[in-house]
């Protein structure tokens, strides 16, 4: 472990047991599908078998007549509200325009279906089985259209058009040209022509990746009760209860004050549970029936009807001097948005060169619609696709220059003051420290086993601020109740509680954190963008400071002294001048009621001091000569986390991101037939890593404090999924001598790479 921060903390950096632990190891924790309430109906959703078709008619009469069916809804049941646009956050802190119609039509189709799995109608019935029977009785007449399944097909001249009204935004201007390319943008720095002229060597290559899924184990779910008082209450597994509330308000045309969203425990998300899917359909069904309606997706629906991340077509060209200095870089990247505009190409373009200080660079990004599910955020959206190309090109360059791949990266590494190609200038970052930790790590220092390949790569992801709120109520026994609005997807209740415990000098076990509903806490943005421990932790820090200030003032009033003469350290309030005057926070808490009433602290924050994170991987693989099967023999993940609040859960993020990246590299893909139907929509055929596929995953935490956060915290959750795909590709290249230009590196693809 490297540490540039020697501050002596009492709670931060320890590994307490999570507050929700007992419930989660005994089966008592209530996840979305576990929720039950009196009179509950069960909903199911009819989905399109066609990847591209016009809907001629929908006849629901037979379904409605089935015994036990209470209601059927279709796209015609959406309220006729504005056809406007709203601003949504794209996962990197950038607000992008989103067309409300697209969201609405993605959740219940309008006159066209744009992917196999596109929702068409919802049924509410007394049991899920009856609802399923009813789906089979809904008659939909389609005019089947030719599907567009790849970026190349979609961008081809005379390609079938998904949206007749979609014209390309060309460098910020509406081109007026109807096309499947929703947007083409550029980031430029310096002059790449001059840069390439100055280069001694040039690397240029094209890389392709395919659509993959987040693979959370719990399917999407939601229960809605549209009450007789006009208020809508929704219980669901979501990464952002306020996102659900605001999206429902937009879609259903009712004010946010009429909606209450209670986030249940959530069984994974990785970005995929930021958007909403079944909640508004359940709400429409509840409005029709007057009963609560629960909808839980099947696994097939999760694959075909939720939001995976994009496949991509990326070309990287790098020029460098013989000493390794990169003189020019060009990235041309097109990414699949799915059925509606909005691929992660924006973030990919920001990240592709982020690890390096490059004088002359150009990034071209293309957002392309195809007849596949509408993509949603997936852990560092777009960045792994970009790194798959860039970090392989870096290794190819190192080989041409006969340099160590880590040395080449260190030669060009981005540091404080480096201006990114997309504009912003980095504050203190830890890219260099990550590379140095990798270089000096026993894994990199160890000799390679005969026949194994070794690969390395690094990657960058952001940290976003946004709104978070926190309330703290002091109990008479000196413990505190902490309420916050960030869905706890991996132990964040505890990391947030640790912020408050540190400030107040009390044990973290004396903090009782609760994640509460949208009626009970101030606006809190999503659990995403690597922001939860950073931003909601910051809100807890501020709320605890508020409690601390009030506690000191209360003690001052009890002792009849000026509060400026007191301070509070390690849970004890004492006078700076009179050593007789001291009492513990616990003692003060027991006197609250007699000295003016309870103490409550509060904070709402929107922190700007975000600290992006760099991660690096070192991986050793063996490749079976006959079958092409790749086995991960050794894997090490290094990441700059600023300050590891709860190191066990930080390691867990690093290991989990690595494992998802390994799956992405070796096995996972949306395997589509030529009609655009997914051929592997089960967890048997969509092959995520099992315990038997992976070795132990070693972690090395680097702590380069984020100067923008009171405890130096950086975003941790996402950067770790960026380096695995290129690190593994580099390792396979090292073992086989062949460049890996496409994912996944299945046995067949590895064998073919030599041809």
């Amino acid at each position, binding site marked *: 472990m490297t540490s540039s921060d020697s501050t002596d903390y009492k709670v931060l950096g320890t*590994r307490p*047991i*999570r507050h*929700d*632990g*007992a419930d*989660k*190891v*005994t*089966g*008592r*924790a*209530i*996840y979305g*599908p*576990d929720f*039950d309430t009196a009179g509950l109906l069960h909903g199911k959703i009819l989905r399109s078998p066609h990847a591209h078709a016009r809907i001629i008619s929908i006849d629901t009469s037979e379904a409605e007549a089935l*015994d*036990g069916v209470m209601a059927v809804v279709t796209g015609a049941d959406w309220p006729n509200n504005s056809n406007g646009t709203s601003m949504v956050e794209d996962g990197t802190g950038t607000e992008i325009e989103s067309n409300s119609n697209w969201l609405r039509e993605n959740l219940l189709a309008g006159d066209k279906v744009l992917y196999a799995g596109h929702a068409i109608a919802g049924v509410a019935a007394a049991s899920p*089985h009856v609802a399923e029977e009813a789906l089979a009785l809904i008659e939909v007449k389609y005019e089947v259209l030719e599907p567009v399944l790849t970026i190349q097909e979609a961008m081809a001249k005379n390609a079938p058009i998904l949206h007749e009204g979609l014209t390309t935004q060309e460098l910020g201007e509406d081109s007026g040209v109807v096309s499947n390319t929703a947007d083409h943008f550029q980031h430029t720095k310096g002059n790449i022509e001059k840069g390439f002229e100055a280069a001694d060597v040039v690397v240029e290559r094209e890389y392709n990746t395919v659509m993959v899924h*987040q*693979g*959370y*184990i*719990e*399917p999407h779910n939601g229960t809605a009760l549209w009450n007789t008082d006009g208020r809508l209450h929704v219980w669901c597994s979501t990464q952002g209860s306020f996102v659900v509330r605001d999206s429902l308000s937009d879609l259903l045309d009712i004010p946010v004050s009429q909606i209450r969203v209670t986030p249940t*425990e*959530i*069984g*994974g*998300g*990785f970005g995929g549970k930021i958007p909403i899917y079944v909640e508004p359909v359940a709400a429409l069904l509840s409005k029709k029936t007057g009963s609560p309606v629960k909808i*839980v997706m*099947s*696994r097939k629906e999760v694959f075909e009807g939720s939001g995976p991340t994009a496949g991509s077509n990326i070309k990287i060209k790098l020029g460098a001097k013989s000493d390794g200095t990169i003189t020019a870089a060009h990235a041309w990247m097109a990414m699949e948005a799915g059925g509606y505009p909005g691929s992660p190409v924006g973030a990919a373009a920001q990240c592709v060169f982020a690890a390096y200080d490059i004088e002359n660079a150009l990034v071209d990004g293309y957002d392309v619609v195809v007849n596949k599910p509408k993509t949603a955020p997936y852990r560092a959206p777009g960045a792994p696709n970009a790194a798959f190309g860039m970090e392989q090109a870096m290794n190819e360059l190192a080989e041409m220059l006969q340099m160590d791949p880590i040395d080449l990266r260190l030669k060009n590494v981005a540091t404080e003051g480096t201006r990114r190609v997309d504009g912003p200038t980095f504050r203190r970052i830890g890219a260099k420290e990550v590379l140095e930790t990798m270089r000096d790590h026993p894994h990199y220092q160890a000799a390679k086993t005969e026949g194994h390949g070794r690969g390395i790569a690094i990657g960058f992801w952001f940290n976003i601020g946004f709104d978070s709120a926190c309330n703290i109520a002091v109990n008479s026994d000196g413990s505190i109740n902490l309420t916050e609005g960030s869905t706890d*997807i*991996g*132990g964040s209740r505890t990391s947030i509680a640790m912020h408050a415990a540190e400030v107040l000098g009390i044990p973290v076990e004396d903090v009782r954190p609760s994640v509460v509903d949208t009626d009970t806490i101030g606006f809190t943005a999503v659990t995403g963008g690597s922001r939860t421990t950073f931003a909601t932790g910051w809100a807890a820090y501020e709320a605890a400071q508020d409690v601390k200030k009030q506690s000191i003032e209360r003690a001052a009033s009890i002792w009849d002294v000026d509060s400026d003469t007191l301070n509070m350290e390690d849970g004890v309030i004492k006078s700076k001048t009179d050593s007789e005057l001291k009492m513990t926070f616990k003692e003060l808490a027991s006197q609250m009621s007699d000295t003016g009433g309870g103490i409550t602290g509060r904070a709402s924050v929107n922190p700007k001091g975000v600290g992006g994170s760099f991660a690096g991987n070192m991986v050793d693989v063996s490749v079976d000569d006959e079958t092409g099967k790749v086995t991960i023999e050794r894997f090490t993940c290094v990441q700059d986390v600023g300050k590891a609040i*709860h190191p*066990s*859960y930080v*390691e*867990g*993020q690093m*290991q*989990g991101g*690595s*494992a*998802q990246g390994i799956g992405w590299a070796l096995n996972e893909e949306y395997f589509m037939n030529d009609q655009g139907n997914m051929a592997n929509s*089960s*967890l*048997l055929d969509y092959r*995520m*890593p*099992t*315990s*038997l596929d*992976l070795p*132990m*995953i070693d972690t090395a935490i680097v702590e380069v404090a984020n100067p923008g956060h009171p405890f130096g915290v950086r975003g941790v959750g996402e950067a770790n999924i960026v380096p695995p795909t290129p690190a593994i590709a580099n390792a396979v290249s090292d073992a086989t001598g062949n460049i890996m230009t496409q994912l996944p590196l299945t046995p067949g693809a590895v064998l073919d790479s030599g041809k």
Partner: protein
Amino acid sequence: MTTKTHVQTTINGEPVDFLCEPRQSLLECLRDVVGLTGTKEGCNDGNCGACTVKLDGRIVTSCLVLGVEAQGADIETIEGVAEGTNLHPLQLAFLENAALQCGICTPGFIVSAKSLLDQNPNPTEHEIRFWLANNLCRCTGYDKIVRAVQDAAKKMQEAS
């Protein structure tokens, strides 16, 4: 409406009767009829292991067993793993080793791992990985789960 069948079982040591439709899986019966929602559904086709329970001494994915097939069976679910207010060593080890993040797969892992340790009190890392290969976890990368099982095995051996 389909006629329901009366099924008599023992669940976590207690006699439990329930009525179920022939098409309902044991998983549905446990969750929706009996109200034991600790057993989770991740895929409903036997591939994720979140619904793992012990049925007459063997671990099964309860989504692939029909409720009516459980007639006369002895079933153990996650709700029966702790003894009163005392967590099982595996449950403690999962907490102490941070072997869960979202926790949705945890009940299945604990039921599976308990069955492993019942048969093999001192498994190797490979034996643990092999045994747990039918339980998918998407959050942890399995490292801390394997360590938790090793830790629990060690502590259970020391205690016995």
